[in-house]
């Protein structure tokens, strides 16, 4: 075996991808060729560094459950094929007629991440952050009365490091929403809340322009949390809010 052949095969040899005969040949060659021996030890050193020293990022807490939650809610939303398709079709047609009326009179429920981030950025402009500035949930909550048609779950989480700063009315996707503002160190977080369709949905997330948008629905309310705090902290806060 020549050195040129050996050099080509050393990698596959160390990767256990060589046939037995080539293994015997290359072992013999490397045993008596210093240059190929060095090639072998360098590749092994590189492997050892990669295996033993390269940091392996740990799984962020809750990631697994979030992913599975996203999959489960996608399955739940999947329409079931039915044998009584004719009846279903008739029902769907009726529903579609209703839907036309409904969607034309009510702003759409979905607020894309982009619009939420726009609203978040708008709120950071001077003078736009809050209409009611108070860290007292008993001040913020009643302020919304008569302004939105649901009870705004304004709660302070100072003990957990998320200070309630205040609230305001905002417009997202053509819909009037309640926005609660929280502070985490130097970061501001916006929690947008509005009355939804009444179907609970698990925590999901997306991102837009570097901002993390967490979304869930609980007890008839739709929630969107927008922030630039690290993902793990945003998730921690979303979990706190969901627990209430």
């Amino acid at each position, binding site marked *: 075996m020549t050195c040129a052949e050996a050099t080509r095969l050393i990698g*596959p040899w160390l990767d256990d991808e060589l046939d037995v005969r080539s293994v015997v040949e290359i072992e013999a060659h490397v045993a008596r060729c210093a240059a190929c021996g060095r090639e072998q030890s*360098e590749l092994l050193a*590189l492997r050892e560094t990669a295996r033993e*020293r390269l940091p*392996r*990022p740990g*799984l962020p807490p809750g990631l697994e459950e*979030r992913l599975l939650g996203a999959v489960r809610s996608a399955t739940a939303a999947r329409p079931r094929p039915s044998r009584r398709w004719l009846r279903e079709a008739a029902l769907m047609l009726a529903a579609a007629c209703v839907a036309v009326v409904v969607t034309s009179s009510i702003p759409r429920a979905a607020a894309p991440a982009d619009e939420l981030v726009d609203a978040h950025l708008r709120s950071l402009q001077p003078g736009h952050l809050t209409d009611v500035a108070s860290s007292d949930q008993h001040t913020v909550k009643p302020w919304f009365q008569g302004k939105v048609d649901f009870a705004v779950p304004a709660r302070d989480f100072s003990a957990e490091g998320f200070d309630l700063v205040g609230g305001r009315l905002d417009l997202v996707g053509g819909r009037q929403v309640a926005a609660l503002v929280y502070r985490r160190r130097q970061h501001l977080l916006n929690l947008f809340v509005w009355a939804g369709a009444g179907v609970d949905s698990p925590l999901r997330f997306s*991102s837009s322009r570097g901002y993390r948008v967490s979304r869930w629905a609980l007890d008839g309310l739709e929630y969107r949390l927008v922030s630039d705090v690290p993902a793990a902290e945003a998730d921690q806060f979303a979990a706190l809010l969901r627990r209430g």
Partner: protein
Amino acid sequence: MPASTSLPEFERALREHLAAAHHLARWLTRTQVDAEDVLQEAALRAFRSFDRLRPANPRSWLLRIVRNCCYDARERREHAAEASLEEEMLPPDASSPVLGLPAEDPEARLVRMADAEALQGALHRVAPEHREVFLLREVEGLSYKEIAEVAGVPIGTVMSRLSRARAQLRALLAAGEKETA
């Protein structure tokens, strides 16, 4: 109905290989947020094809989907080419292939076990196609055949990419050592 009967099986596969999937996504995207977005998309995509494909090797099947989602995300980002890209998150020269590498010196000094930081930096400087085969082989311990499945290329291509990746990394590490020596 197949969607519900296969859900537990799918969940098992996802749980079992999530660490490897997360690791790969982390190396093929810029930030943790990007990696998690990609994983969410990949999980949904994987679930949709799970019933149809019944993958014989769930690990390489899942990693392949994650990999493709990473490349799609990068393409979308490049198309968008927004001015507001967070360049500060980008490690120096990440995602740009190595240009003008020093020619391999047959008498190059022995690359000893390098430190993690040097290898990380070097990995960011090689092209993603080379980075991924190296990581899948050396860290995840995939066979050539499995890597070929993940990357969607023939085994011969895996071999040449792997050999190129190793040569580039060694050259970068050796150059770094000379600089600091």
